[in-house]
């Protein structure tokens, strides 16, 4: 019974494909891919609509106010109203803007965000597109976002847009390094770049109780924190939202966009957030595996989306808690703390592997990480006095 519920979506797809028997193989392949794409878009666009209203509700709760509560029960139909508003708004293109680039930027950024969703395993046998180097695909395609942001900033022909794009690209390039390096220990320990293999490597339970997710090893916990912070930066979320800093540069690279194009940027940001959280779940939080062996009767995709909603709540929680950081703080943090810690995670994972992957390895890798962390925090002690800041390039 639980098995058939677990595989209900696969069976539904098989049933749909069974209507096509007799057609050439390539046509069946194309239809199969189209079903996957349609399912992905349906699920994640619904989730986007849901999270946009939930975020406002949760933020309102944190700031002791009501939040949206006019449209539908508890304001739940707010996204529909928002969507209609965005669609019927006037689409303004500045006269001096580069029309083609200005038009292509939101399309590219949304396409990239949706493409990265394709390689994440959402449940048992539920990876939409199985690629041998799935993790590499995620980052290769994800790195195209920088070009899309640049196109938006440059194509708008506006100072604020260009400044926002510059800031966004600077922080995205800086944090791509710790993001990718914090993934390396997992790839090293599993010995594969395929997301399915990484999830399968975290399937067992120690003493039938504690799941063998990588986040429960010292190197995994440290790498997960680095990954999560880098993910925050990559999706331009508070406290790292200087590219959009409303108080300084209007809306950064989105300043000259209106109506549906602006909504597309907004959607791409949220879908990027889902994708990076999904990858974090796959790499460190055991993918679609249940946290207890006794709970394995719950369908696998339910566990994936439960973990995803916890991570999304943390994103919203951080947004409601922390103020915006300065750009120099962001950069210093990336190069002086995140990068050395990410390299330490690789060494700690190697120590863990060669000390037998047991309790001994656990303690040794904790020791390595603690030593480097202590040394870094002493070296980067911010209580020392700074000389007054000198501007060398902008007098």
């Amino acid at each position, binding site marked *: 019974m639980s098995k058939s519920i677990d595989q209900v979506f696969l069976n539904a797809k098989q049933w749909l494909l069974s209507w096509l028997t007799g057609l050439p193989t*390539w046509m069946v392949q194309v239809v199969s891919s189209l079903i996957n794409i349609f399912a992905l878009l349906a699920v994640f666009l619904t989730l986007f609509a849901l999270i946009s209203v939930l975020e406002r509700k949760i933020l309102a709760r944190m700031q002791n106010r009501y939040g949206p509560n006019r449209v539908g029960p508890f304001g739940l139909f707010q996204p529909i109203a928002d969507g209609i508003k965005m669609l019927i708004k006037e689409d303004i293109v500045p006269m001096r803007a*580069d029309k083609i*680039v200005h038009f292509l930027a939101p399309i590219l950024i949304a396409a990239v965000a949706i493409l990265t969703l394709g390689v994440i395993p959402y449940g048992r046998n539920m990876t939409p597109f199985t690629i*041998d180097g799935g993790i*590499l695909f995620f980052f*290769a395609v994800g790195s195209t976002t920088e070009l899309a942001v640049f196109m938006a900033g440059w194509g708008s022909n506006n100072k604020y847009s260009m400044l926002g794009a510059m800031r966004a*690209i600077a922080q995205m390039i800086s944090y791509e390094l710790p993001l990718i390096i914090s993934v390396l220990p997992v790839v090293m320990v599993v010995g*594969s770049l395929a997301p399915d293999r990484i999830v399968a490597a975290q399937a067992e339970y120690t003493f039938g109780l504690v799941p063998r997710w990588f986040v429960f090893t010292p190197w995994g916990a440290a790498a997960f924190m680095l990954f999560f912070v880098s993910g925050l930066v990559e999706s331009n979320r508070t406290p790292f939202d200087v590219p959009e800093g409303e108080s300084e540069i209007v809306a950064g690279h989105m300043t000259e966009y209106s109506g549906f194009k602006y909504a597309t940027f907004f959607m791409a940001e949220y879908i990027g957030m889902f994708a990076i959280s999904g990858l974090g779940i796959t790499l460190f939080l055991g993918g679609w595996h249940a946290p207890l062996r006794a709970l394995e009767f719950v369908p696998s995709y339910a566990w994936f989306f439960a973990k995803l909603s916890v991570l999304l709540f943390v994103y919203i929680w951080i947004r409601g808690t922390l103020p915006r950081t300065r750009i120099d703080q962001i950069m210093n943090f990336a190069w002086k703390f995140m990068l050395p810690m990410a390299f330490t995670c690789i060494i700690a994972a190697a120590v863990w592997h060669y000390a037998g992957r047991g309790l001994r390895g656990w303690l040794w890798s904790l020791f390595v990480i603690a030593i480097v962390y202590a040394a870094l925090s002493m070296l980067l002690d911010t209580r020392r006095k700074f000389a007054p800041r*000198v501007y060398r390039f902008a007098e």
Partner: protein
Amino acid sequence: MNSAAFIVTAIFTVAAALAAATLRNLMHAALSFAAAFVGIAALFFLLGAEFVGLALVFIYIGAVAVLVVFTILLTRRDVGKDRGFNWGGATVAVAVFACLTWSILKTQSLAIGAPHIATLTVKRIGAALMTTYVWPLQCVGILLTAALIGALILVMEERR
């Protein structure tokens, strides 16, 4: 199916490359250059060399295209000025094309029909890099580390 996909990607790649070479607006040319690399990566995917295709996207679009675009942005002030036909560029292009054609025609293995090649998995590439080619890999690693340290020294603030 595969040949149809090949024709579509080939037309896309050639069109983007032509656009990169001929467009007046330098920024448009740089962006079409990135599009051409998407096409080339797609061709590698069609040939079953996923890793090469992904590395191409990663390096040429994620890093090189962004670098090119920034270089144009920070240096050029005379965008749109006509400089006449670039004879040097044309000579280099013809020479490279002639070299490539010559070496392709000289290659022996092309005469035999396409041999059956086992799909190149990431695992096999990794194993080769870590065993047979570990020495070049280490040299590249040292070079890149030196470049990183050099960049840091260039931008380091002078102590007063």
